[in-house]
């Protein structure tokens, strides 16, 4: 009896895993419309040490010919380094680990000549951090499956939430310091402007006195 329920749990887990992977892959992707001329860029502010995994593909060609259109993609880091560059493809993917904190930009544009005003729909599957984690290999390595795998994923999500909270707290602390220095500076600079005003007027008067004395008018 116990053996059969274990088997059943295994089957349940495997099916749930498949369902989840299917859901995750479809649910995460968003579709964008690239204009007929110009580029469409999406960006995200990411900190360093985060895995980024993305997949892009042409979804729908409004003109009706799916085979003839190609797109190009370019991904740049916040310091301007080119992380991924692909020309004339219908689909592609890129993966990298961020080394610098800042804004990462992924730009897409259509290759070739297109009718004015007719755009192209592409799907972008953008995952970072825990969402980019390969759960299948973890399941195989740790030899866990089913409910335990689900709970492990939930645990990963909770850890990520916790670390995000700490990250947000640190950012808020930095911002608070900037605010407070700005506040102190406003007070100091205003008083100093009064001082500058007085000093400048004293210099003026002193110079004019010397000038008039030289001219023998006083």
């Amino acid at each position: 009896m116990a053996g059969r329920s274990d088997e059943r749990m295994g089957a349940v887990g495997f099916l749930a895993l498949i369902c989840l992977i299917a859901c995750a892959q479809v649910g995460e992707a968003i579709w964008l419309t690239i204009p007929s001329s110009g580029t469409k860029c999406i960006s995200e502010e990411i900190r360093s040490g985060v895995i980024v995994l993305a997949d892009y593909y042409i979804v729908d060609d409004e003109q009706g010919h799916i085979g003839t259109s190609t797109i190009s993609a370019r991904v740049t880091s916040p310091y301007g380094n080119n992380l991924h560059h692909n020309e004339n493809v219908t689909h592609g993917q890129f993966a990298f680990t961020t080394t610098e904190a800042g804004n990462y930009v992924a730009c897409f544009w259509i290759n070739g000549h297109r009718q004015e005003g007719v755009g192209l729909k592409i799907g972008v599957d953008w995952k970072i951090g825990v969402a980019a984690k390969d759960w299948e290999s973890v399941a195989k390595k740790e030899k866990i499956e089913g409910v335990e795998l689900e709970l492990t994923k939930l645990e990963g999500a909770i850890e990520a939430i916790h670390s995000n909270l700490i990250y947000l707290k640190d950012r808020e602390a930095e911002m608070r310091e900037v605010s407070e220095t700005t506040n102190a500076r406003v007070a100091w600079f205003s008083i100093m402007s009064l001082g500058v005003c007085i000093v400048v007027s004293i210099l003026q008067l002193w110079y004019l006195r010397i000038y008039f004395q030289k001219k023998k008018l006083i």
Partner: protein
Amino acid sequence: MEARHRSKNLLVSFFLLWSFLVTPISSLSVTVNDVECVYEYVLYEGDTVSGNYVVVDHDIFWASDHPGIDFTVTSPAGNSVHSQKGTSGDKFEFKAPRAGMYKFCFHNPYSTPETVSFYIHIGHIPNDHDLAKDEHLDPINVKIAELREALESVTAEQKYLKARDTRHRHTNESTRKRVIYYTLAEYLLLACASSLQVFYIRRLFSKSIAYNRV
């Protein structure tokens, strides 16, 4: 006692494994010139579509607050499911009336391009109908799905906070720069004005121009 010790070991090992793989914060930003639409597919009818969007400050010179951006969600049937006008950021949540491709559109009524940071999540919880259809699905999966959705809502809230924090940061940086540059400009202007005054007075008294006047 044994099981608890083992699970604690598991917890520690997982934490060590993932301590460097963090941040699922994934709010994409897109620049809105006039209208920008993002599409997302909803698999099941009745799924909860939730998300948020924040307009990132683009250094407004005079106005004290952002003029706002319009946001509409269109169902695959073509009718508007959710709409919000003239805000600089909001959270939204609705139940999808049917499955299909939903369109999330941002409309910028002003000429300056704005950058909008958004996050969309579609949550599905297997209900009794799904359980009845698929005999392999355990009721525990429903509970796990509910837990996952709850965690997702926390994550979504964090993303919203992060986006608003970024906006606040821009304002702070702008204020800091303005304080420094405007006070320096003020001091220079003051010095210039007073030296101009001195030169003018000198000119009044110079012999070549106003010999008889003063």
